């Protein structure tokens, strides 16, 4: 692990601010994806007093080779967790709450009802807008409907990588199914902002990324984030390339040309990174598009 990272992969931590977020989460017996996935932005986001909560335990039923979240026997769902998440959102005074989960292939609805409950609780206890980042629920339309019915402001599902690399990076997922989730959501809930995210630096080509973006745009998906894959440990996939900030800027420009309402493409971008700003800016673009058409 001794290659020095490119200087653009540099972050800052103020441990007091980070620990304050940890303490709040611990006190409410909540997990954050920030901590569980080892996100390098935790210093920056803690400074803004924000975190992305991860419901349904710390153990994921899949084993994607790019992800640092623990895999293993999943924890029993806690029916009080949604209320505590809403409580955390309230205490942090978040204006935009982002919630994700581990993948729960063991649950009949994949955890959809837990997402639904979290959205309801946050709406009841706060005035925050709500963004949920869902797994594919194994393509279960009714599970997706369960989440759609609660009308989250942003509904995200990550495609993660280009089609060719799915067997390597995401063997338990299906490229077309993830695209299908995005399309099904947008078709059945057109007023939502639909969002996806992917990583680069896994060995994909520029053309493959553009094809991915076109495939995603075709589903009607509105928002996109793209970030550099960072290898959590020796057991995870190798970083094939540290993609330059210039290439990220190109991807962002392509995304805008393709008609995405918003795109954050940056080495350190993650699906929840700057989520509140991305949502707010996209709302403004949508309004402006309506006016200038």
């Amino acid at each position: 692990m001794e290659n020095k990272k490119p200087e653009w992969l540099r972050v800052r931590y103020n441990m007091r601010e980070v620990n304050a977020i940890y303490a709040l989460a611990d006190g409410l017996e909540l997990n954050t994806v920030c901590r569980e996935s080892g996100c390098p932005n935790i210093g920056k986001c803690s400074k803004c007093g924000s975190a992305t909560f991860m419901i349904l335990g710390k153990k994921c039923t899949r084993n994607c080779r790019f992800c640092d979240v623990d895999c293993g026997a999943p924890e029993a769902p806690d029916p009080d967790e949604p209320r505590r998440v809403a409580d955390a959102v309230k205490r942090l005074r978040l204006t935009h709450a982002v919630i994700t989960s581990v993948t729960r292939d063991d649950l009949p609805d994949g955890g959809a009802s837990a997402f639904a409950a979290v959205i309801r609780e946050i709406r009841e206890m706060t005035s925050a807008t709500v963004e949920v980042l869902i797994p594919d629920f194994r393509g279960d339309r009714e599970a997706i409907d369960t989440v759609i019915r609660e009308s989250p402001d942003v509904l995200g599902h990550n495609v993660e990588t280009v089609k060719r690399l799915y067997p390597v990076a995401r063997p338990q997922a299906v490229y077309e199914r993830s695209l299908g989730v995005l399309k099904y959501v947008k078709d059945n809930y057109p007023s939502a902002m639909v969002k996806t995210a992917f990583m680069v630096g896994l060995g994909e080509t520029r053309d493959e990324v553009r094809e991915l973006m076109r495939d995603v745009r075709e589903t009607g998906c509105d928002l996109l984030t793209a970030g550099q894959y960072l290898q959590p440990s020796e057991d995870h996939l190798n970083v094939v390339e540290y993609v330059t900030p210039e290439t990220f800027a190109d991807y962002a420009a392509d995304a805008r040309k393709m008609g995405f309402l918003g795109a954050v493409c940056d080495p350190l971008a993650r699906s929840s990174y700057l989520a509140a700003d991305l949502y707010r800016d996209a709302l403004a673009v949508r309004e402006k598009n309506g006016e200038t058409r």
Partner: protein
Amino acid sequence: MIYVRCRSLDPRFNLALEEYLLSLDTDEEIFCLWRNGPAVVSGRFQNIFAECDVPLAEDRGVAVIRRITGGGTVYHDGGNINYTVIRSKDENGLDYPAFIAPVAAALRELCVPAEISGSCVTVKGKKISGSAQTTVGGRVLHHGTLLYSADLNDLRRFTTPPSACFDSAAIGSNPAPVGNMIDVLGGDPDPEEFADEIGRIVSGGAAPLEPESFDTDAIEKLAEKYASWEWNIGSSPKFSFRGGKDTKMGKIRLSYTSKRGVIDGAEWSGPYENEIKNVLIGARLDRAALRDALTRATSDGSFAGDAAGFILSGK
């Protein structure tokens, strides 16, 4: 597989047939091919006025209908072939390509180099098919369009937003370029025969059933829904409108909100301000009804006609 070949061009009957087939208590796959006369078909959750110039469609005799699946607004005419696949839910879940594959394979056998791209089919980079799904009970309905020899000018004309007056308009930036299959096939188009060929291949040569084999009374009853204002317009999502129009009588400025196809709040300034003030709230978004109400209020039938069109399209 139950293969149904419907020869009616009545979009209300055909959408009712689909919904009827979806309700059948069977585990068998159902495959249906059908065409519509000119019709604008909006997605379940769309504001149809924002997606299509509804007054223009009505003037041109184009039916305006809402379907039960989500997604965007499409235009059907005799050169477009619709296919419907109904299967029981399985553990594969959402899988657009799996529902499209048999039709795409049939197209290739018919010398159309069809490729599946997400939930669409493309031929030499042009989109010839889009699709949508819904699920009721344990059954999944997937249907799609197939552009064979459609009038692409009309397609664009009737699926272009009429104005920027509607707030909840879908942002269709960079829609994929569309094309007809006849462009690569050449020859004289015969959509009915081409559809028969698709059906022959997908069904493995099975004898098709016609709608008459089913409970046509039940289908006709369902068709009433697709002819009703209550379904087509009355199930529109909330939206708001803001726009202006110059008329012989002066400039109209109007903003209104609508819920369930009815105006529930409105501000009108311009000609006949006092007369119109009380007429709009509670009015149905229906051109004939609006024209009548406005004519009664203003005694100016010509103005009322223009105004009714403006209220529904912003033009």
